[in-house]
């Protein structure tokens, strides 16, 4: 009976229940751009019959929020999507229903209540497996370590107001470890992330390219963690 009292038009349903989904985006799905990801999820939820809550503005749209964008081509199993529903559904049910409709390479790993605020995101960790043209994995690794030993790593940054200027990114790069695997160098990095200051792995790799005067031959990037300023997992 309670359901019958709900207005038919979902736009008028005001109660909302918030969910935080952790999802993976790997393999073929790593090439879905950020904009396309939004559209992809809209259709996934529609197929799964998940009652999304719509924003109440002049142009109502399903509420979906990705607090931290993922670069095109980067794999991840720690991505965050916040949604709101008009009905309270068990977390596991949301996860399972959505997973039945997900495209190849994407799945919901967990669904829960949002605990932290988006602004608490401060860092992200990455694992980059790669090698440079004309270099072996161990040469790439050694070279990257030398790259990290520099006092300054200056990159060009384009801003709207001041045009192009040089920024030192060295203080922001935290090399957590290096290794080799199947002929590739494996680098673990922690970089600033979030709304205040964000450093993309592409920027680091481009700086490395000019450092060693060679282009990337093969590269696989994976985001492994999203962290707060106290290095706690963002939940």
């Amino acid at each position, binding site marked *: 009976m309670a359901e019958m009292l709900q207005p038919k038009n979902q736009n008028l349903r005001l109660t909302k229940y918030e969910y935080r989904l952790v999802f993976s985006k790997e393999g073929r799905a790593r090439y879905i*751009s950020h904009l396309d990801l939004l559209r992809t999820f809209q259709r996934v939820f529609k197929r799964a019959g998940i009652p999304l809550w719509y924003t109440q503005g002049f142009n109502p749209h399903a509420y979906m929020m990705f607090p931290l964008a993922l670069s095109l081509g980067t794999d991840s199993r720690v991505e965050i999507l916040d949604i709101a529903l008009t009905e309270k559904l068990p977390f596991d049910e949301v996860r399972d229903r959505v997973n039945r409709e997900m495209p190849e390479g994407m799945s919901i790993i967990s669904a829960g209540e949002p605990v932290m605020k988006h602004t608490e995101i401060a860092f992200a960790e990455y694992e980059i497996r790669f090698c440079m043209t004309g270099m072996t994995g161990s040469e790439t690794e050694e070279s990257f370590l030398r790259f990290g030993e520099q006092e300054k790593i200056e990159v060009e940054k384009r801003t709207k107001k001041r045009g192009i200027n040089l920024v030192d990114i060295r203080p922001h790069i935290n090399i957590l470890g290096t290794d080799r695997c199947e002929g590739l160098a494996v680098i673990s990095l922690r970089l600033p992330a979030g709304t205040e200051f964000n450093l993309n792995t592409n920027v680091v790799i481009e700086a490395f390219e000019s450092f060693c005067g060679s282009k990337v031959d093969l590269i696989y990037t994976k985001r492994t963690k999203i962290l707060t300023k106290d290095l706690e997992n963002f939940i």
Partner: protein
Amino acid sequence: MEEIRKKVEQLLLKTQKPARYIGGEHGSVVKDKSKVDVRFAFCFPDVYDVGMSHLGMKILYGLKNAVPNYWCERVFMPEKDFEALMRENNIPLYALESLDPIKDFDFIGFTLQYELSFTNVLEMLDLAGLPVYARDRKGLTPIVVGGGPCVCNPEPIAAFFDLFILGEGEEVNLELMRLYEKMKPSAPTKEEFLREAAKIEGIYVPQFYDIAYNEDGTVASITPNVPEAKPKIRKRVIADFDHTYYPDTFVVPFTGIVHDRVVVEVLRGCIRGCRFCQAGFIYRPFREKDISTIASETKTLCEQTGYEEVSLSSLSTSDHTKITELLTTLSDYTDKENINLSLPSLRIDTMSKEIVDRIAAVRKSGLTFAPEAGTQRLRDVINKNLTEDEILRTCRLAFAEGYQTVKLYFMLGLPDETDEDVEGIAELAQKVVELYYQTPKEQRGKSVQVSVSCATFVPKPFTPFEFEPQATPEQIKHKQGHLLDCIGSKKIKISYHQQNVSVLEGVLARGDRRLAEAIYCAWRKGCTLDSWDEHFRFDLWQEAFAECGTDTAFYANRRRSYEEITPWSHLDYLVSHEFFVRENKKAHEAKTTRNCAEGCSGCGIKKECGGVYCG
């Protein structure tokens, strides 16, 4: 596959919209290769964004994949940036589902939707690592097949294909694949297979026909050279259209495409008989789906894809015999599900105000009319039965509702067109503008914009105008200039299509086999993606025509006699030659022909084809 995948993955980061080149979309079909007997690479010879919007591909993809041991995959033309990367890195053209090279497939099928995609076919064959000329592909597979509307005159590209499929593909595609499945174990030669295939109705094997030419360049004769080749090849028609296969899901792309929504086909064929319109004749007869079929297909597809928009597809949706009931039924469902129902090709004059309001409530876009010609006389010549009164009446209503933009589509270079007809375009646009100012201020919108779009008329085979000369670029230039001189209001905006594109389209549309060399030559010079303004290189096409000694005026600007043997005269699209001659004569007398709903005009289509108004 693994090797291609690894290479492609690295390149995707260097290309625009990489999601177009890697597959993996919801609804794409991946099968276990060891359980598949026939593999079909369905190629759309244009980029992903265009090809993925094509309904025919969705239908045939679903149809073939519904057979457990057949696997149909999608292939599109890469954009120039990715094509260059593929060539640099020795990546052969691959199919999006398996990422396997298509040269190893049993069939490679191209849908030929417009003439300007012809060079893309050559490019795709070459990217696949195959010789482009059929005569140079000696083995049985891949068998290169072509279908779609351009197959009604496939002669200019016949040299590149093993066979063509005429007409609707739902039945004949499976018949062809079954024949192949049956013959494959006995390892036939390509010729043995093609001779058997030629026995199937609707299948045209160009190499089994010899063409002789007269001294004046016209065709002297078209003669079958094997017993299996029929003197006339008839197009295929689905007589029971209401029960024919329709997919229950679509491949849902990640990246935006041209038509990104559910599409439900409500009717096929057209009753109108506009004399310039090839689609209006080659898709005859007019057949429609039951309301319950359309409603259930709409619901299933919306649920399966997650799209929030559905569009009805047809040549003229309002000609459905139960249009009001149909729209009421559908909008009951779409309203409830927050789905947007969009209705292209709708004639507002035939519907109740209630329905118009209901549809208009969704989105107040603009009004679009296609009067095609500026005066009633010329509209009678082309048999376009839309009167000035109808246009003005609808505009008056629309302006009172607050509409601010009206688009008017016209063609320049129609048969028997005079300067007076060109002036008529400007006058009609002016009348629409004036109508806006006559609307009370409190009702009308803030301003008005009338967009006049002028295409160049290109005569096409299997129309009453197939005999007509195409207007020369000089004539069109004069007409365009004259039209601009006649426009007085700043509220009227005129736009034209690129003139040289129409010239090429005109040559290819009514060309013969001798054009193959010029097409090959143009492609060799770098002509691909000709339908994209930024890639179209008319200078290279002109070089190619010059080098091959092609007289473009012979194909485009010459009047053909009723008796001339056309390059497509061995193909039978069921509408009779006599009907086209009759219609052509009536056109020159500016006499209209009634539409099929008003009464049969004897076009030659038989009752057995399932037409609503036939027999």
